[in-house]
């Protein structure tokens, strides 16, 4: 084991978030790189152990299914933070707000006049074949016209340093609790770095979330009853549901805890009796939300909830049906939607995308499968994807068949040279690929973006898969002020 030597750090032709060229940290990362290089080898190891102990004692876990049983796993975490300069982040933040504003206008339009289709901006076929369009939501006016109150957009950086939006998660995005916990762990492990005062704090998220939720209450009074609705302990994000409920000081409820009476009011069953609920931050999928309206066999939902929501007696975040914009085909149209609704150019570019529903694009995709990533329109968590360059010929052939059978369900993107960031292995920093998931809240007071977001890292060398369910880890994300002040 030796000292951290940045001269030895070689990011092999990728854009590295912290180190411009071997031995030359970027300006925002200089302070961190110097401190790490100044550690004795055993000190670095000690900090790493301290982080592991903190994660265990704080009980930060996520749940994975394995051979039919569920396991709580310790959250995989790397102590070297990912750093973004504050001036760059301000531009990203503006781009995210713009994007979510347009997406909310788009969803509202789809459930009302569908002008975007009539004006020929979105092909009617996209809407007709959308699996997440909910006819039950047509004509509904949620508070402040907002459908996607909480959005998690995945950002990646390409080889030339450009930040792209990879996808928008508008259904029930998760990960924000880990963003907050990563900071708590890092503060324990690298306290000396926070003394500089140049690292922006992240802990405003929970109060912002609570204020946004409370602002949606149909009863206008000081003390609205807000709850978090979870599918239960077997859900992979249960840790986050419990965490957010505790941090906001609200009840964590499950479907059977709630009921809707004939007046369309939602109540929760408490020791005090039935208590009216005003706002539900639901972490249950649309399809399971209300057996009266959606899947009849759902035991996770609340019968009559849609009825209550439609009559305006309860507010739901995110609104049912918001997932219509969480579709990798709709994604490809977002720059056009921004232009259409806001008359602005998109501040954040999309990754170039090929839609298999368009004949020309489809031909290109089928001919270039070996160099493309193919994604199904409506999957999340990295499931059901084809990584062309790494796949076998048989896998590629199977995907070609899938695409021809159901072209609307697939889109393809070039394999990106995802940026890397230093990650510790055996006391040495090695480049590993990362993405970033910031969270955007939209409420009565406009939009709020988390300071940075959740950085996910592919721990396997060369891998681009960052999902925690598939061997990814995470890091703290620092927005750092640069320049003299």
């Amino acid at each position, binding site marked *: 084991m030796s000292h951290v030597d940045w001269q030895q750090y070689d990011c092999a032709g990728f854009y590295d978030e912290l180190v411009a060229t071997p031995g030359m940290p970027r300006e925002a990362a200089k302070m961190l790189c110097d401190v790490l290089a100044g550690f004795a080898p055993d000190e670095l190891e000690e900090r790493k152990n301290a982080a592991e102990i903190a994660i265990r004692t704080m009980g930060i876990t996520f749940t994975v299914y394995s051979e039919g049983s569920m396991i709580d796993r310790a959250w995989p975490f790397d102590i070297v933070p990912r750093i973004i300069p504050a001036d760059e982040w301000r531009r990203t933040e503006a781009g995210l707000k713009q994007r979510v504003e347009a997406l909310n206008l788009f969803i509202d339009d789809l459930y009302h006049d569908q002008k975007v289709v009539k004006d020929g901006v979105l092909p009617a076929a996209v809407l007709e074949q959308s699996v997440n369009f909910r006819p039950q939501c047509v004509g509904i006016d949620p508070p402040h016209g907002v459908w996607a109150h909480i959005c998690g957009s995945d950002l990646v950086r390409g080889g030339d340093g450009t930040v792209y939006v990879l996808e928008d998660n508008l259904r029930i995005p998760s990960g924000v609790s880990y963003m907050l916990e990563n900071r708590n762990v890092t503060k324990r492990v690298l306290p000396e770095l926070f003394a500089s005062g140049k690292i922006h704090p992240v802990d405003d998220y929970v109060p912002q979330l609570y204020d946004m939720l409370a602002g949606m209450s149909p009863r206008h009074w000081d003390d609205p009853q807000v709850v978090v609705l979870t599918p239960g302990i077997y859900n992979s994000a249960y840790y986050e549901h419990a965490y957010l409920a505790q941090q906001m000081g609200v009840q964590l409820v499950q479907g059977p805890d709630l009921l809707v009476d004939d007046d369309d009011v939602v109540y929760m069953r*408490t020791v005090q009796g039935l208590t009216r609920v005003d706002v539900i931050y639901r972490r249950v999928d649309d399809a399971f939300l209300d057996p009266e309206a959606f899947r009849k066999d759902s035991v996770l939902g609340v019968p009559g909830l849609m009825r209550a929501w439609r009559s305006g007696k309860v507010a739901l975040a995110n609104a049912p049906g918001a997932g219509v914009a969480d579709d990798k085909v709709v994604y490809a149209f977002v720059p056009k939607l921004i232009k259409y609704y806001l008359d602005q150019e998109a501040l954040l570019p999309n990754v170039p995308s090929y839609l298999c529903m368009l004949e020309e694009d489809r031909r290109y995709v089928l001919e270039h499968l070996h160099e493309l990533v193919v994604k199904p329109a409506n999957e999340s968590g990295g499931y059901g994807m084809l990584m062309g360059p790494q796949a076998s010929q048989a896998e590629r052939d199977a995907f070609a068949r899938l695409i021809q059978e159901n072209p609307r369900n697939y889109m393809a993107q070039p394999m990106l040279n995802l940026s890397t960031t230093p990650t510790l292995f055996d006391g040495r920093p090695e480049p590993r690929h990362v993405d970033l998931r910031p969270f955007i809240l939209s409420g009565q007071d406009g939009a709020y973006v988390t300071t940075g977001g959740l950085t996910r890292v592919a721990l396997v060398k060369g891998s681009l898969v960052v999902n925690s369910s598939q061997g990814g880890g995470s890091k703290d994300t620092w927005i750092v002020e640069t320049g003299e002040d």
Partner: protein
Amino acid sequence: MLMLSRVAENLYWMARYIERAEDTARLINVSSHLMLDMPYRQPLGWAAMVDITGGAEVFETLYDEPNDRNVVQFLCADRRYSGSILSALAQARENLRTTRDVVPREVWEEINQLYMTASAHADAGLGPGRRERFLKLVIRGCQTLIGLIEGTLSYGGSRTFMMLGRQLERADMITRIIDVRSANLLQRDSDEIRPFEHLQWMSVLKSLTAYQMYRQHVRCRVRATDVLRFLVQDSLFPRSVSRSLKDSIRALRSLPRHERALATATLVLADVAEADVRALVRSPEALHDFIDVLQQGFAELHTAIARTYFPTLDDLGDGELLAASDQA
């Protein structure tokens, strides 16, 4: 502070199962010791212990003979029987699993640990040499849990519902032990049993960890009347029926909407206080009937608590909704 009905119910049952596991462990431990002192071919036997837990029917379908090995396996480790120690611990753990965020983390860790250690120990066999260690492990684990709850959980709803579950289970278990054991002890037509009466009443006390407290309280020879009075009516010993009911009543007073449950508990306590113990000891039938009345009372108290505070998924009447609308 609002408390979800589901959470209240889970905590109530968690505490009941923990108490059940502990009481069963104490009962088996003491009975095992007593059996060693009894004369060969004594009618008192292992079958009585199965009766105490109310598992006779299940036992008969699973085992041939109520001998030492079978009964201990059945009561300690048989997961097919919901009243076994391992089943009780498993159910306590499941009840806490979904509500673990309302109790201090250590409580969850302890119950998890207890279940896993006890399972591993039982799976390795419960022969006479290993049995006592298993039972001690369970008793100690349950006491640790109660201590953790007592020492770390804020006074409030969670604690109150665990208190109710624990006390109701305890009162129920005390009366079961008295019922089954006294059926044996109070039969005066057998001469053979007399010399051992003293020993057996001592074992009843010991299975409730009451022997020492009893000796401090009643200084004379162990006699049926005194033992019964102590276990039923003493208001200071934590494992007497009277004390359990009083603790339940105190817990209920801190809850909203407690009128019916409180009235029910008070009526059962009155039955306990007014009992003529001297007369009960003279007539096994009268004692059995008295125990029946108490057990019915406990069941009514449980029902009153459940109807008032726990989720009623199937039979949610209009009455409850109307009451809620009035509140809102």
